[in-house]
């Protein structure tokens, strides 16, 4: 293995080629294109950079350009229009309301998923019979498409035949007809339940992996020293799992900010615009109203906001360094 690796290194650096041919041989006189370490590295990286630019930078530039044009359902006006769409966006209450709603929902759903995921991980971190089976079953919601999950929960919350109302009915002893997906008081809790059901297992999985890797020796030493459960958790477990928690929060936080599928299938953003997330509004403007330039401006503002948030979040965790 060692020999193989060194040969590979030689191949990359070109030293193998140099040693194999005497200084005056023709091969030595005409170095291959990979003779230089630098050239080879660039040659390897170039296709990747090209594709990243193609799929990342090009759409971004196109988005920038579109946001200062005026492309709508009826006109392909690609002339420069300045920042008219941004001005309109800043006075668009529906946009800011949907953004505020999205962040508010994230602020509630994220801690709930984290806490439930962590509690489940604590439950399953110790060895128990058929643990793998339980873990596999718990993970099932994650593999379901959010659209399917949303449609399923809409049926679960159906006011006449849905099991949720029936179960509540058993407890209260009479028929219950709660309008989960249209009652302003119930609609957000219904979405929260669906969202937490689907994505808590994801938190659970990451946190279970993190907890499983906490050093046994440290935990045993703390126990011998008489540390309380809280002290052990605060000073040993939490620092050990913190990078994973941060990444889990970041991934789920970003997912929640762009939440679309579950809300769309359950309420379509209603009643009124009460559950309209910023993604739903952006989709609505782009693909139903065909306000292409306006929705490009909207997407740009969302990208900037998210980038600021992600950079701020990354700067607080280890992986940013």
């Amino acid at each position: 293995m060692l020999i193989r690796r060194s040969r590979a290194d030689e191949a990359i650096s070109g030293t193998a080629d140099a040693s194999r041919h005497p200084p005056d041989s023709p091969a030595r006189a005409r170095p291959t294109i990979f003779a230089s370490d630098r050239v080879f590295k660039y040659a390897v990286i170039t296709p990747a950079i090209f594709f990243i630019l193609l799929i990342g930078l090009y759409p971004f530039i196109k988005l920038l350009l579109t946001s200062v044009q005026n492309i709508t359902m009826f006109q392909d006006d690609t002339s420069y229009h300045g920042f008219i769409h941004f001005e309109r966006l800043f006075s668009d209450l529906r946009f800011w309301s949907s953004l505020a709603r999205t962040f508010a929902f994230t602020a509630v759903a994220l801690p709930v998923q984290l806490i439930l995921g962590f509690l489940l991980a604590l439950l399953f971190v110790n060895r128990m019979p058929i643990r793998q089976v339980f873990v596999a079953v718990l993970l099932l919601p994650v593999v379901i498409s959010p659209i399917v999950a949303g449609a399923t929960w809409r049926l679960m919350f159906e006011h006449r035949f849905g099991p949720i109302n029936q179960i509540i009915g058993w407890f209260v002893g009479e028929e219950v007809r709660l309008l989960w997906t249209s009652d302003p008081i119930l609609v957000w809790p219904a979405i929260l339940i669906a969202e937490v059901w689907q994505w808590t297992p994801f938190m659970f999985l990451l946190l279970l992996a993190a907890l499983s890797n906490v050093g046994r020796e440290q935990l045993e030493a703390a126990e011998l020293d008489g540390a309380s459960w809280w002290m052990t958790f605060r000073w040993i477990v939490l620092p050990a799992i913190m990078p994973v928690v941060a990444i889990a929060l970041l991934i789920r936080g970003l997912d929640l900010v762009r939440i679309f599928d579950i809300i769309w299938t359950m309420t379509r953003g209603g009643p009124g615009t009460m559950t309209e997330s910023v993604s739903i509004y952006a989709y609505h403007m782009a693909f139903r109203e065909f306000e292409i330039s306006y929705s490009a401006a909207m997407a740009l503002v969302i990208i900037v906001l998210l980038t600021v948030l992600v950079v701020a979040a990354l700067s607080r965790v280890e992986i940013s360094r």
Partner: protein
Amino acid sequence: MRRMLPSTATGALLSVCLLATTSTAWSQSAAERAVEAAQEYSGTEITVLYEAGLQALDASNFAAERWEELTGIRVNVVESPVDEIFTRIMQAHRAGTASFDVVNVIPNQMPDLAMSGALEPLDDYVERYDYAQELELIAPVYRDNWMRVEGTIYGFPDDGDVLVLYYRKDIFEDPENQEAFREQHGYDLAPPTTWEEYREIGQFITDKYAPEVYGAAGHFQPGNFQYLVQQRFRDEGGRFFDPETMRATINSEAGVRAFEGIRADLEMMPTGVEQWGFVENLNALLAGDVAMSITWPPVGRWAAGYGAETDALDWLPESQVSGRIGYALPPNGQPELAVGWALSLASTSENKEAAYLFMQWMNSEEVSLERVQLPFTLRGPFRESHYQDEGFRNLWPDAGDYLDTLWEGAQSGILDLSIIQIDRYEEALRQAISRLWAGDDIQEILDDTAEQWDALTDRIGVDAQRRAYEDWASKPNAYPTQ
């Protein structure tokens, strides 16, 4: 003379041939002409966009196979939920992709699609394939309102949608109910002619029969219900806009009355009815759980048990009210010609001739007569001959009454609002309905809706929208005559 003979004979022969050809052309129906011309495109494939579900079975269970047998042209059916149809067509058009050849279009969205260039003008095709005469035989209300945009043909009306009141004859004709109702309200228990009567009759039935039978139900999900709201608003004397200023007047007293009436109607309906869609309402009517329902034509056929043995309808509950359903026009007698469909040609199609010929064949007198009788599609009659056809009128015992009611509705029906970017105005209306169900203040809901409409109008351009509105409002079926 010798020279003349052959030329005379040739001329006579040519005349005979010409006469024969012409008479063949004359004797050919539009469907036959379409088939003959389409055989040239044998081996090609066309893609047709349909509303998802039963409507699409029109092609996949009936037309596609037969068209392929006749012409060798394969038909690929793509389905989309009704509220995504506009988006799908526009997306394909904007992307410049030939995703669809033939598209089913909601007629009140046709101006938007035509003006944005997504639809192909059809006048030249109609002339080339001699279809004008058969187009004239489409029921006037559909032909005159669902076919042209600014004088150009962009679609063939292909589904005579109209909202019909279905009611339980056994409950209405029960002598005991008749007597009790007359005593209570001072008029006969009969299909309601005003919205007030509708509420009173419904309440009377609910009071007597609930929870087994409720007075009425409907499809109240905003997507479906917005059409009945448009009707109700106009029944109350409402006008959508002030034609001078183009400010929205949906928040007028008429709007408030309409919304208050709708909310009050819920009192005599099953709990949670505001979440019912087309299927929930259909199930309730077929199960005998409701005495009145205002909905689309296919429900009347299924309630009579027509097509119950069809495989495609095996999901449908067996009608418990077969023979007991009566047909009438909704209160005020001028029903909404809600949704409807027209066949249009996508401008990005790469098989325009073949696609057009398929449309002509589907829409023709003889083929459309078969299609509107298919039990598994949602297609309503739309040609004068459909309503009069003896075969159709004898499909079930009350089919004649059913067709007469639809015909009456097609005469007096009122059109869905159709102005520039109508889907955006309808979206605001759908939001208003969902807020109505959520219990918000009615005046506040309507003020917000009017504000959204005004902002839309300003953005589109007041003058442009005024022209579109005036064009729509000038049609005899835009506002009720009573």
